């Protein structure tokens, strides 16, 4: 058999296959994992010589393997982890900080051929405060901020978090979740019965 310039005999071919499999296996063993998650010493960031620190730090696999599985990012569905009570992260350090959670969906219809976007305030305000996004990333009024996918991919608008910390931009359908034609209402804020813009105003 010929591989490039080198002629290989049958025994040599077998040795090649054996060596390759051993080398691949050693690579896998060398980068130790706990479940799906790389061990800190093998994550390419932590200094292996810092034995004292590494001994104390929690391994991602020890914590994340116990949370609802996601398909991307930390491979955890963080929204579900919070809503189903797997985790109970603190909402504030200072006493007297107002904890604001609102339930208001925004449907965005200018999505070209993609599914419409449903933005749920509830899932976001359970983690974030209004002022994290309003008014710097988004004006608190539908249609005022020119949200666009190019900007998002460059880290603006939703891309401030999505693609860096919250689920990545490759999960298209988690935001683009409403199939065109199945939604016949008005785009924008979907106010619950009897409520309007004034009820959700930040002023």
């Amino acid at each position, binding site marked *: 058999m010929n591989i490039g310039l080198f002629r290989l005999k049958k025994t040599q071919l077998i040795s090649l296959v054996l060596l390759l499999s051993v080398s691949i296996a050693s690579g896998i063993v060398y980068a130790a994992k706990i479940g799906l998650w790389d061990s800190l010493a093998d994550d390419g960031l932590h200094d292996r010589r810092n034995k004292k620190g590494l001994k104390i730090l929690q391994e991602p696999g020890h*914590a994340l393997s116990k949370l609802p599985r996601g398909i991307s990012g930390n491979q955890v569905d963080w929204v579900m982890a919070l809503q189903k009570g797997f985790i109970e992260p603190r909402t504030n350090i200072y006493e007297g900080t107002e904890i604001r959670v609102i339930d208001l969906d925004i449907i965005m219809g200018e999505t070209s051929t993609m599914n419409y976007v449903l933005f749920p305030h509830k899932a976001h305000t359970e983690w974030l405060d209004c002022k994290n996004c309003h008014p710097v990333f988004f004006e608190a009024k539908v249609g005022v901020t020119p949200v666009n996918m190019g900007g998002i991919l460059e880290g603006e608008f939703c891309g401030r978090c999505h693609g860096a910390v919250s689920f990545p931009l490759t999960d298209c359908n988690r935001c683009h979740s409403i199939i065109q034609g199945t939604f016949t209402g008005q785009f924008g804020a979907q106010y619950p019965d009897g409520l309007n813009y004034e009820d959700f105003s930040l002023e």
Partner: protein
Amino acid sequence: MRIFLLNKSINQSFILGISILFSSVFYSGIASAEYGDVVINRYSDKAGMRPVIYPHWFHRIRFRCKVCHGELGFEMKAGANDVTMAEIIDGKFCGMCHNGEIAWSTEYCDICHSGKPGLQPGIRGAHQTLGPGVW
């Protein structure tokens, strides 16, 4: 049977070379930072300390985003926060919790300053979407 690694012919060196190459490729392909890890190295290297590895995953299990990005005043952009150790010891930024009461205090340098020397600052992350959405 011949022991291949002791044979000095060029074919065996070629095979060994390929194996080592594959080994390194697979190794570097597997090791990766956790999604949302931030390398903080504005001052650490210059001060002879290891860079800080800030894990978002660890903190969001314990705190909602709004605590650090609201109450503690961290901007939501890597590189936009000029945080000095003096401020932290003074109880600002990380020091709001890392004071020995809520979380470990600043005397345990090696737990936060745990990165490889010379790392570029910025946000890291490993996992792309799995399945049909991969690009």
